[in-house]
């Protein structure tokens, strides 16, 4: 492994994007979706997640460290690409470009989002429905969150396609195409789950 450091880091980067980061993303959006069923059910779910045994260790090893590694190597990957969609406007080349753009947007969004929620809770704010309601009733923040959630979900869905190709699961052009449709479906479904929650927080419906 030591002699193939770049290979190992890049494969790890690809894996971490799906497990655990992708799984966490889905879990996070699904649990937050409790908001749609009412303030009380959201508060119950949020406090259940917040009071899990070993919660800080879970957060560090399942969320913070994987995201930090994925983000640092990811910014480097963005930096070494020379995008050329204007000259080569192929579908996959556009997705390659969008994967890099959404990666950066998601990084900015996550940094802001963690500061506004997890850090504030650690500093004494209470983790409940009104915290998110307070943030999202501001239309600027609402649209920032919409863009952030869509970026994160796109980056995850397209990254899932990349994972399946990079690890060699989908080899034939046909299988790669079908995986493209499958990950498009993932994008649509997970986006709905996330955006629907934001609408509830912002407009109470």
């Amino acid at each position, binding site marked *: 492994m030591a002699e193939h450091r770049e290979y190992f880091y890049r494969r790890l980067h690809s894996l971490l994007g799906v497990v655990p980061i992708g799984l966490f993303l889905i879990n996070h959006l699904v649990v937050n979706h409790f908001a749609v069923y009412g303030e009380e059910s959201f508060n119950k779910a949020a406090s259940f997640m917040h009071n899990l045994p070993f919660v800080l260790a879970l957060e560090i090893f399942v969320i913070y460290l994987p995201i930090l590694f994925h983000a640092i190597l990811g910014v480097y990957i963005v930096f070494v690409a020379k995008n050329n969609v204007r000259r080569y406007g192929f579908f996959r080349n556009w997705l390659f470009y969008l*994967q890099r753009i959404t990666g950066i947007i998601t990084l900015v969004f996550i940094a802001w989002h963690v500061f506004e929620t997890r850090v504030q809770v650690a500093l004494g704010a209470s983790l409940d429905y009104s915290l998110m309601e307070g943030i999202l009733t501001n239309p600027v923040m609402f649209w920032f969150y919409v863009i952030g959630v869509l970026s994160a979900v796109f980056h995850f869905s397209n990254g899932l396609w990349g994972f399946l*190709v990079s690890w060699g699961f989908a080899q034939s052009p046909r299988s790669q195409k079908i995986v493209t449709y499958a990950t498009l479906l993932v994008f649509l479904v997970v986006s709905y789950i996330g955006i629907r929650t934001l609408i509830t927080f912002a407009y109470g419906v």
Partner: protein
Amino acid sequence: MAEQKTITFIITRQDSPDSAPYEETFNVPYRKNMNIISGLMEIRKNPVTAKGEKTTPVAWDMNCLEEVCGACSMVINGVPRQSCAALVDELEQPIRLEPMSTFPVVRDLVIDRERMFDALKQVKAWIPIDGTYDLGPGPRMPEKKRQWAYELSKCMTCGVCLEACPNVNDKSNFIGPAAISQARLFNSHPTGEMNASERLEGLMEEGGLVGCGNAQNCVQVCPKGIPLTTSIAAMNRAATVQSFKNFFGSDNAH
């Protein structure tokens, strides 16, 4: 047809590897069925720009003139391709010629493709059969396998896939699609297979497989229609299996 038709070339030129590029325009008398190279030959016969100034003849690289050697690749109207197979009648005027930007320019349209040959060395894209005695005939190859492997053997190291790849540039050390596909070709050969892991190790080195970001431009632009992205995915799978064999141990890790 009394009037003499002309075609216009706008060529990006560069006098030496370190000097700044500049453009020159040339008007060349039209003949039927011209390709880009015959146009460049006309310029060489009479190196005078459209403004009437005498200049040096434009330098370019060529060899086979039938799209199998890969030497004459250049960017023609924004598309990287072989100038021998680019017919003037099928191109929009004026015709813009540039050297492929991924490679160091030697002079004008001549580029240095050495990085591609270095990449072939990195992945050991050959079959070692030299020895002190006759090894006899090698194992047979299944016909079905031969058919797809033959497609991979059409690669002429022309550099078009590297030119189109967003991850092959001076900021990254990615070796590009061509060498990855060649590793697959030699790993599919029944004799070459005996050294399969050595090629996979080469692909796992710096600048190898993981430099690919799946933009898949390569497979769209390859003049030989080689299934480059299938090759990359195939090598991704083989490298995954190889790295598990390496780590956990295997009697079949050769």
